[in-house]
């Protein structure tokens, strides 16, 4: 159980910068997820911490010791690879015990520790099995056992679940989290799966184009995304451009072609059910909202304290639980979930409660993509 300090880290591959001044502090015993789309630099950050990627600038310290220049074998980290990276010429027990053998443990001690790991990971009876005979889920458990056996300062998880079947992925997700909490180990987890990060991590680091877009608990980043990018990345990807003015307690939205003027309460700082507005004064804003946090009403129906967009249903699908509709408002189609069964072509109103709104200043290029 140790802390990890990353300060102003810069990494470049052949001229192009992959990481651009990333700073991160992982507290002892904390589970941090690095989340981002492919190419955002999350894997590079993990590989820089483990020592496989040379660093151009900045500093990495594990348990207070500067390891920026140390080779991988001199860092007390243990990595779980996406491809499992189990050695096919060794048995399950040999794979798990390899790190201990390197640390010159005696044979009985290694056997004892390996048995403990096998018990912990529900791999009893597979000790002498060749790893090539194991299933994907079992292999990743062995890889986890190999990493945990050496009791590392930091456990690094490089998309360990993305090669597994959906059901085993969900199962292992909770198992890894439970193990991490039980052992109190510090862990850094790389993933592109939003839900996986939300379910497993204490804190989530969202990376975009080599810089940190936001750091926060799952609830923080979900409720108060720091930027339009984070909002979209976390599922608030319906974007409606508005003219708005922020007052002390409210957000005054001017009437537009498809909606009436409305005054909504502001959220933040304890107020859970108000709108999030990341803009002082007045001007054009991009208002983000989630498919699942709004509902539909019949046309003409205008509930108070909500932004209401007038539109027409263009698509309907039933993904399970609720209906999902494509609703055209002006020239834009928004995805909206609703409990009721409706018909394509119906005129409807999208009812957006204040708590579902995340408003960011609208820049010209954002207006183009909205």
């Amino acid at each position, binding site marked *: 159980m140790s802390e990890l300090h990353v300060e102003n880290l810069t990494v470049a591959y052949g001229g192009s910068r992959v990481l651009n001044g990333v700073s991160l502090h992982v507290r002892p015993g904390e589970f941090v997820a690095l989340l981002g789309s492919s190419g955002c630099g999350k894997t590079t950050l993990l590989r820089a911490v483990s*020592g*496989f990627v040379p660093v151009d600038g900045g500093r990495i310290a594990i348990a207070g010791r500067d390891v920026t220049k140390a080779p991988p074998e001199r860092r007390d980290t243990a990595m779980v690879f996406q491809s499992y990276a189990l*050695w096919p*010429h060794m048995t399950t027990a040999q794979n798990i015990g390899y790190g201990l053998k*390197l640390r010159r443990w005696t044979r009985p001690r290694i056997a004892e520790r390996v048995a403990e790991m096998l018990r912990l990971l529900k791999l009893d009876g597979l000790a002498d099995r060749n790893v090539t005979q194991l299933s994907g889920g079992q292999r990743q458990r062995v890889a986890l056992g190999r990493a945990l056996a050496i009791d590392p300062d930091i456990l690094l998880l490089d998309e360990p679940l993305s090669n597994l079947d959906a059901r085993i992925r969900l199962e292992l997700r909770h198992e890894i989290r439970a193990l991490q909490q039980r052992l109190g180990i510090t862990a850094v987890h790389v993933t592109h799966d939003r839900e996986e990060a939300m379910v497993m991590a204490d804190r989530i680091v969202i990376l975009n184009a080599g810089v940190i877009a936001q750091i926060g608990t799952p609830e923080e980043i979900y409720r108060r995304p720091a930027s339009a990018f984070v909002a979209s990345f976390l599922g608030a990807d319906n974007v409606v451009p508005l003219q708005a003015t922020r007052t002390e307690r409210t957000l005054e939205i001017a009437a537009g072609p498809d909606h009436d003027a409305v005054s909504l309460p502001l959220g933040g700082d304890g107020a859970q059910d108000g709108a999030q507005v990341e803009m002082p004064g007045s001007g054009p804003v991009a208002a983000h909202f989630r498919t699942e946090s709004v509902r539909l009403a019949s046309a003409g129906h205008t509930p108070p304290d909500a932004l209401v967009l007038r539109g027409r249903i263009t698509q309907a699908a039933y993904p399970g639980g609720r209906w999902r509709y494509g609703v055209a408002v002006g020239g834009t189609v928004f995805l909206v979930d609703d409990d009721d069964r409706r018909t394509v072509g119906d005129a409807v109103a999208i009812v957006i409660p204040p708590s579902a709104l995340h408003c960011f200043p609208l820049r010209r290029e954002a207006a183009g993509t909205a």
Partner: protein
Amino acid sequence: MITTLAPARALAWIPRGLALGLLAFVIFGPLTNLGLWAVAEKWYFPHTLPLQYGFSFWERVFAPRSNAMASLATSVTIALLTVAACLAVSVPAGYALARLRLPWRGAILLAFLLPQAFPSVAVYINVARIFYTLGLNGTVAGVVLVHTVHGLVFSVWITAAAFAAVDRSLEEAARDMGAGPLRTFFGITLPLAAPGVMASSIFVFLESLDEFTGTYFVGVPDISTLPLLMFNAGMGGNFQIAAITALILLVPSVGFMLVIERFLKADVLAKVGH
């Protein structure tokens, strides 16, 4: 049902059968001739088959003090030394070619192919000249050197492919667990590449065992290997001795080829020359 088939269909096997028969004759014809000569006591023109069969020539070949046994020992010694020399070069070279970002990588791979590209007689006559001045002519070391240059192309190409087929993350996992670069190489990379390295060694061994031209120019008259013995026997009209020697040479070839077939996996073969 079968009788209702069109007659053309029923005869369709004939061209295929003829082609297979021809192929079998091309392959097994000379082998049959070899087999017959190996057990023929008396066989001369115009008789189609030997007049008398027996094993008296086998006794001569396998007599403890015969030339054949001495040549076999020399052949195997040279082949083993050649394998060792090739491995000493190809293991580090193959690893470097597979893992490091070398400039001129293609050119280096091609360089090992060059000895095969030139007419061998011309090359070996000049090698022999140079070896004379160095005192290497007629020595085992000289012959081993010639065989090594010849075998390096298989050795380096296949070994490089074998190393390239080892997943890098397997090495990274070992480094991550605390193994240094050397420990990782000997504990992870080399064992995983071993089947490919083994296959390349077998190729080199067989090439050395069968090699004639280089041995002839560099080794004669002091070094006598099985192919040279066979050549001499054949030239002297001693077909029985030549046939038996050829059969002795055939045994390791066929045996090892079966082994290679098991060792050389598709993932390694796909990386040969890349």
